[in-house]
């Protein structure tokens, strides 16, 4: 057994779990935070993407013990005080989801890519950056549109804040 200590969405958590527990399992089954989805469980679909110490990773491909000591952000940690995160709002506005199963991972990957590229995202980059996220409903068109809209809004907001 391993003692896993994490900060999840700003809250310190700790639990004693089997060493083979995946981070995705830890979040869903130990912490009962089921916003993080498990789609393929073979590291391909990206529904389980969370941020570990600020970087997007597939939580089904990391042991909880490997992550111990880290700060983890999940889809549940994005909305602030009841207001949707700009990426969540953009997915709603631009119909970036149908069944919604891949959406937590799509949004976590989108936030990570916007953080890394700032306002310099274009369609080609977004599509390349979505390599690790699979959606079976939308054909990606509206997902890409949502991410580009959110990136523009977030960089606009950053500019206003800087001025």
């Amino acid at each position, binding site marked *: 057994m*391993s003692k896993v200590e994490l900060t999840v969405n700003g809250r310190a958590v700790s639990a004693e779990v*089997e*060493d*083979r527990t*995946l981070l995705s399992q830890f979040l869903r089954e130990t912490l009962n935070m089921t916003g993080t989805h498990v789609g393929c*469980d*073979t*590291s391909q679909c*990206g529904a389980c*993407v969370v941020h570990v110490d600020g*970087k*997007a*990773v*597939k939580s*089904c*491909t*990391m*042991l909880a*013990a*490997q992550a*111990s000591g880290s700060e983890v952000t999940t889809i549940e940690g994005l909305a602030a005080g009841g207001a949707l995160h700009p990426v969540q709002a953009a997915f709603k506005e631009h119909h970036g989801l149908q069944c919604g199963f891949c959406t937590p991972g799509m949004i976590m*990957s989108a936030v*990570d*890519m916007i953080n890394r590229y700032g306002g310099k995202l274009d369609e080609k980059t977004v599509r390349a*950056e979505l*390599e*690790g*996220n699979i959606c079976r409903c939308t054909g990606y068109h509206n997902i890409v549109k949502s991410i580009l809209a959110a990136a523009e809004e977030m960089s606009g907001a950053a500019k206003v804040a800087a001025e």
Partner: protein
Amino acid sequence: MYETTYHRAGSVEEAVKLMGEADGGKFVAGGQTLIPTMKQRLAAPDSLIDLRHIADLKGISVDGANVRIGAGTTHYDVANSADLKAVCPGLCSLASHIGDPQVRHMGTIGGSISNNDPAADYPSAMLALGATIHTSKRDIAADDFFTGMFETALDEDEIVTAVSFTAPDACAYSKFPNPASRYAMAGVFVAKGGNGVRVGVTGAGNDGVYRWSDAEAALSSDFSAGALDGLSVDAGDMMEDLHGTADYRANLVKVMAKRAVASAG
């Protein structure tokens, strides 16, 4: 996944010691191959010794043309190193096309070359750059390091700590990714420098990564894509699987080599 015992090493010495105490242990770096393999029960180490938190294994140093990359450096950090891009952009480009962004945030150069998957990208670059592989025990020339599919010169308790090489005058990598997995069905790294011209081929050979000596000879006298026109790759040396026949791969190797030379300039 079968049960396993997780150990976090704070130093290379501690990791080696933990491996000595384990009965059938495995080192895990980024875990982007090992964890999925364990989930499929294709690997079942009784102990996992985590190298990811060893600070000494991380980082890139570029001093003139001398490059050293810590084994624990992630693909993402290799892809985005401005210092490395200035002297060896081909390696940054290679790293930027491994797996997907999430895999690149975790996967490491040391893990990739230690696993020596026959379709992994990095081994071809190590061969073409004439890199030296530094380990917890010794320094090994890349030519002696990769010994076959998933086989290396490493002992069970030996850890890759860094790779080093002299930046070439020109280099580039070109791969034809499998449309589903994005692993290389043929990937060719071409480097031209003080060691002459060296060509590393991954994804295609039936004994893992190899150097294409005919191409090296042709490119040494004429470093242009056209210099490869008259060459052919023996399909008898190629892998064959559901993704492609040996003939198909033999053709891909030549096409990828020409593209790599053209983009190395």
